[in-house]
């Protein structure tokens, strides 16, 4: 009776706090839609969203044209060409004007250098075969083939990918030239186009197989990655509402009355935990529903729920309980709402970074990887990813659930200790 009355009171207080509801439900929905949209572009970078690349070809030879064609057909870039007479300043201005973050200025000696290097290699090869090759061109390799301009804000990984693509294009042209030289020297006739196509074909056999726990077909896209991750973030963000609610009650006149009534304050805290556990479950339900039904309407991949629905429910409940326990601790220790809000929000952001929600855990340095274990959000994310991305079942994620329960019980123990110390229970 007491617990039910307290849950009813907490529910009523919660639903009458419109801003609190917006913070707990609308904000995460906006966040998950925004981040999934952005990340969806990253996932589709080889498809419809290519990287803009500004090219200034100062070379008049034919090989630079082939180089540009190779880049254009690589499937990675959306090329923009600028007049060959543009100077550095005009080139930079054009990058800014077109909002392009990477540019290439092809050196006037590009074709000459590639050709000379190819002749050099083919000559050496013929000599090593015991054949008489053309006189080795001693063209000095002192100049760069091209200059790469980039916005300093782009990630190093993107710059490395672009460099790799540019090198690959140059290598292909160079290889073609070497092959043509060798064929001509041996057969004294030009290399047939069909043979050239066959010999220089870039298509290599490679099977891409995403990891799957039970050989289930898995779907990998921005939605499957982001919806679980930001659902966890939303669940933990109840710290703002729950911790503030505890602090508000502690500092209000009603708390004095509660302490004099013949009921333990632990009932009030148990009620808050149940109420907010329901809230976290509803948050997950709302975000998953939006992922399933709304995302396809706004041109995002639809969310596919895991096969193990019971596992999904259990993980959601355990994640929610952990989030609520964390908020409970903050609410008990904080003296003011400002303290609870500031510490709660900043600590959740830090824990989500450590947990791999904002930066993938596989790119973290070793020291940070060991810190991940203390972030409950890491275990939540691993449990969800085990279900959503790897097609796992409950037994496959049992270690994550066990770790989460351990952290949750530790948080509950800290809360009870603090309440006893403050003589509240």
């Amino acid at each position, binding site marked *: 009776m007491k617990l039910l009355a307290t849950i009813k009171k907490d529910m009523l*207080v919660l639903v009458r706090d419109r801003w609190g509801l917006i913070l707990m439900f609308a904000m995460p929905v906006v966040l998950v839609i925004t981040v999934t949209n952005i990340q969806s572009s990253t996932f589709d970078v080889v498809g419809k969203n290519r990287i803009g690349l500004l090219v200034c070809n100062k070379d008049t030879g034919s090989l630079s044209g082939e180089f540009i064609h190779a880049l254009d057909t690589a499937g990675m870039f959306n090329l923009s060409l600028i007049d060959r007479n543009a100077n550095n300043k005009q080139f930079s201005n054009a990058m800014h004007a077109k909002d392009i973050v990477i540019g290439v200025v092809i050196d006037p000696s590009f074709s000459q250098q590639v050709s000379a290097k190819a002749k050099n290699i083919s000559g050496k090869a013929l000599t090593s075969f015991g054949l008489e090759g053309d006189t080795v061109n001693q063209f000095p390799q002192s100049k760069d083939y091209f200059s790469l301009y980039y916005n300093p804000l782009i990630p190093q990984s993107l710059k490395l990918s672009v460099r790799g693509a540019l090198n690959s294009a140059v290598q292909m042209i160079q290889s073609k030239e070497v092959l043509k030289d060798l064929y001509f020297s041996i057969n004294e006739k030009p290399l047939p186009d069909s043979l050239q196509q066959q010999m220089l074909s870039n298509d290599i056999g490679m099977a891409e197989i995403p990891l799957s726990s039970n050989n289930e077909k898995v779907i990998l896209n921005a939605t499957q990655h982001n919806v679980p991750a930001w659902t966890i973030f939303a669940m933990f963000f109840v710290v703002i509402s729950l911790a503030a609610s505890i602090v508000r009650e502690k500092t209000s006149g009603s708390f004095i009355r509660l302490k004099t009534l013949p009921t333990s304050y632990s009932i009030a805290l148990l009620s808050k935990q149940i109420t907010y556990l329901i809230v976290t479950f509803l948050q997950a339900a709302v975000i998953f529903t939006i992922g399933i039904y709304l995302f396809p309407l706004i041109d995002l991949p639809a969310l596919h729920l895991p096969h193990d629905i019971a596992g999904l429910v259990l993980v959601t409940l355990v994640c929610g309980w952990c989030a609520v326990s964390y908020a409970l601790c903050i609410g008990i220790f904080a003296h003011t709402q400002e303290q609870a809000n500031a510490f709660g929000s900043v600590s959740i952001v830090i824990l989500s970074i450590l947990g791999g929600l904002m930066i993938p855990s596989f790119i973290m340095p070793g020291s940070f990887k060991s810190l991940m274990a203390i972030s409950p959000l890491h275990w939540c994310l691993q449990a969800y990813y085990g279900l959503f991305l790897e097609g796992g079942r409950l037994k496959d994620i049992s270690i994550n659930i066990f770790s989460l329960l351990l952290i949750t019980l530790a948080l509950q123990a800290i809360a009870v200790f603090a309440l006893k110390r403050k003589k509240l229970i």
Partner: protein
Amino acid sequence: MEQHAIQISQLNFHYKDQTKLFSDLDLAIGEGERFGLFGPNGAGKTTLMHLMTGLLSFKEGSIQLFGNSINLKNKTVNKLFGLVPQDFSFYPELTPVENLEFFGAWCGLTSNQIQKRSAELFTILHLTQVKNKPVKNFSGGMKRKVNLAIGVIHEPRLLFLDEPTVGVDVQTRHEIVDYLKQLNSKGTTLVYTSHQLNEAEELCNKIALIDDGKIIALDTLDNLLATHQQPDLESLFIQLTGKAYKNS
């Protein structure tokens, strides 16, 4: 032997890192009394009320309510008393009905008991018209009445009142004082503190003046006025506590 509502014996108390506020304090409040506790700011009135209700704990001495030691851990004694704090002690987002449902349940009442008692209180305190509206939109006087209703929902034998009429209009003040007298006539012991001495004269039949943690006068109002040859409580208060402003 006379049953005491409150029996304080040899009470010693001090806040952390402060000098002793109460030293060997003895006080007995009889059942059925309308007891007023008065004194300047910082005299120890609120602290004494918090000690009597278990909000503050003490190490030396004893406080008994109807023969039961006040004990934070054992809350059975808490059923015996109600508290009407000076600060509004309810959930402003909730209606009077919802507030009484919640606090009634915490007092151990059943759903039927709460409904019956709430209906009585809404009628007596003229809250029926607004019983389903959020308390946050109420006037100061209405909020005071809700604050009082919650304190008496479980029909306590002893009621602590800390400035129950502060900030209300004359009509509401009379309404509250009349209700408190009515409660007392049915046997509820009142322990009342306020700075409104004319109201105290109207309500209290026994008075204690407290200053610097010591009880400097304790008797019925008539006896105190006669002993100290003062016309009213305010004159007596100034005579015994001085005219200088105190807020230590």
